[in-house]
């Protein structure tokens, strides 16, 4: 006779029942899938509402006032749209936006060229490529602030390694290579560090793109006797383009927000030659304490990133569909 109580299924069920207290079992088995769904998604939503959405609306509210965070007891007056009006007509803000655009343009250009180049070379699959890929990836894992801070030392005109290496190659005396205090070199000091850190990121995404191109396309091109340059221009580049564009999107958003390195390397100086939007925002909000004004600026920045990213994603989707 078969004892049903010892069948493996029953034993498993019993073990489960024993491991959960009976009251919990009752409650748990009573949960519908819909309840479980909200139980699972709810906490994340509550956290995002509390830490992202609520402050965002608070900032929108503040942007219509003249509130100053360092004088919480002063009466707060509503100023309507005056903050927005002032920001959009302030030449300094436009200069900061131009500086930011300049940074975004050059960092993306350099990182895309270097990143794609590296990916293309690594895709030759020479022996040991996996090891060297890991080495190349290391800079992007590190803290931009902590490593960026150390670059100040490398940039020191006389004692810094960077100035020494440049003077060794170019013959310019090392005391004249003032990367951080020279008006025309300071923007490049930041672009160089950012490119050093983030080209590997572009490389990784491009590598995924290159590896997604099926081999039979190249085989067909070989059969048709297409030259390597022709293959590169009409197969490799167009098929990797959506990936390159994606990398540009991610780097674009990140560099629009750029703060860490600029704050530590130049702090916006010399003068205001490297004052990007984030630095202006920090000065207005946490040094001049014009909270209402800076909230309005923050909202404008957010709308700008969001709008530009959306337009870009539309273009990206069109490229993908081709």
């Amino acid at each position, binding site marked *: 006779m078969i004892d049903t109580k010892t069948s493996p299924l029953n034993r498993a069920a019993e073990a489960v029942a024993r491991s959960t207290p009976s009251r919990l079992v009752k409650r748990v088995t009573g949960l519908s899938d819909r309840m479980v769904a909200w139980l699972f998604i709810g906490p994340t939503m509550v956290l995002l509402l509390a830490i992202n959405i609520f402050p965002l609306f608070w900032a929108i509210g503040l942007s219509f006032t003249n509130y100053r965070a360092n004088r919480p007891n002063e009466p707060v007056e509503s100023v309507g749209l005056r903050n927005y009006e002032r920001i959009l007509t302030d030449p300094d803000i436009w200069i900061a936006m131009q500086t930011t655009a300049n940074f975004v343009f050059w960092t993306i250009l350099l990182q895309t060229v270097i990143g794609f180049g590296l990916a293309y070379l690594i895709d030759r699959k*020479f022996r040991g490529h996996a090891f060297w890929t890991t080495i190349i990836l290391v800079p992007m894992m590190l803290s931009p602030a902590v*490593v960026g801070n150390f670059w100040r030392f490398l940039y020191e005109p006389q004692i810094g390694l960077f100035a020494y290496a440049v003077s060794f190659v170019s013959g310019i005396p090392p005391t004249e290579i003032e990367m951080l205090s020279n008006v025309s070199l300071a923007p490049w000091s930041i672009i160089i560090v950012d490119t050093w850190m983030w080209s590997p990121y572009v490389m990784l995404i491009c590598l995924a793109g290159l590896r997604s191109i099926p081999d039979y396309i190249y085989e067909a091109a070989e059969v048709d006797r297409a030259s390597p340059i022709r293959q590169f221009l009409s197969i490799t580049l167009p098929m990797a383009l959506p990936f390159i564009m994606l990398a540009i999107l991610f780097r674009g958003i990140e560099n629009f927000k750029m703060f860490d390195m600029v704050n530590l390397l130049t702090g916006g100086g010399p003068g205001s030659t490297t004052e990007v939007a984030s630095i202006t925002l920090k000065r207005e909000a946490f040094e001049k304490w014009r909270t209402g004004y800076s909230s309005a600026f923050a909202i404008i920045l957010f709308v700008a990133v969001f709008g530009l*990213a959306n337009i870009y994603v539309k273009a990206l989707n069109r490229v993908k569909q081709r």
Partner: protein
Amino acid sequence: MSLTTAHSVVVPSTTSKRIAAVLIVAYALISIVPLLWIFATSFKTPPDSIAYPPKILFQPSTEGYCNLFTTRTRQTAEYIASLPPATSFCDEVTRKRNMVIAGPSNFLPRFVNSLIIAFGSTFCAVFLGTLAAYGFSRFKVPLADDLLFFILSTRMMPPIAVAIPIYLMYRELGLSDSALGMILLYTAVNVSLAVWLLKGFIDEIPREYEEAAMIDGYTRLQAFWKVVLPQATTGIAATAIFCLIFAWNEYAFAALLTSGTAQTAPPFIPTIIGEGGQDWPAVAAGTTIFLVPILVFTILLRKQLLRGITFGAVRK
């Protein structure tokens, strides 16, 4: 990943492979020079660190590490001569520079803050993210796509813009300069990435597994706990590394919202100064200690990391 077969006509030629190898190795070596320089500087004495031309060969010293962990005061030679003999290497080095150790520096507490905040927020973000990702993956959630896009778009905001209202809110709630406040903030920032990555991983686990378990009498929660979670461990680990790297490296929020008790290492390290300027060996020592955990992670877990980066980026 490789689709090439031995007889494929598209295998790169030996020459092109050689050229590629030379260029990649050259780039890799140049790109790690700054990191090697940090490491080397941390073992230099202050005079060696600012020598011209920069010293590649030098007598290693742990003075930088001594200076990193201590605060020192200048004393007269007579006072130092009157002290009992130095008990440790750090004592000895400090006295050679006509100084005595006054006490421990703030580096260790700041480093511990970094550990608490990074691991605390990573745990919370992965915990919440796994639940939410499962919810989005398996149930019909109204407006799911909009919610997911919205969750992700919260990362597009410049940190300074986010910090203004957070600063005011934390001041009202008494969370300013507190580890709890930073953990909450980093969790909120990371959970968006965690949900996005983990949903991809959980989508790949066949629903049939849980359904079979539920037919066997498991409830939905038991099926999630005993069937889905064990399958998702790789994805959860990869996500956790990303969250940890973000929280460990974060600077902007930490610099604006913490100043004392809850300050993390990234805003602290740039403030390490010696007499007459930045004490570069001490900064390098702090930087080295701060970077080592991430370096070890990167090298040990590179496969998961690679998967996570390309995965997160390449998905629609």
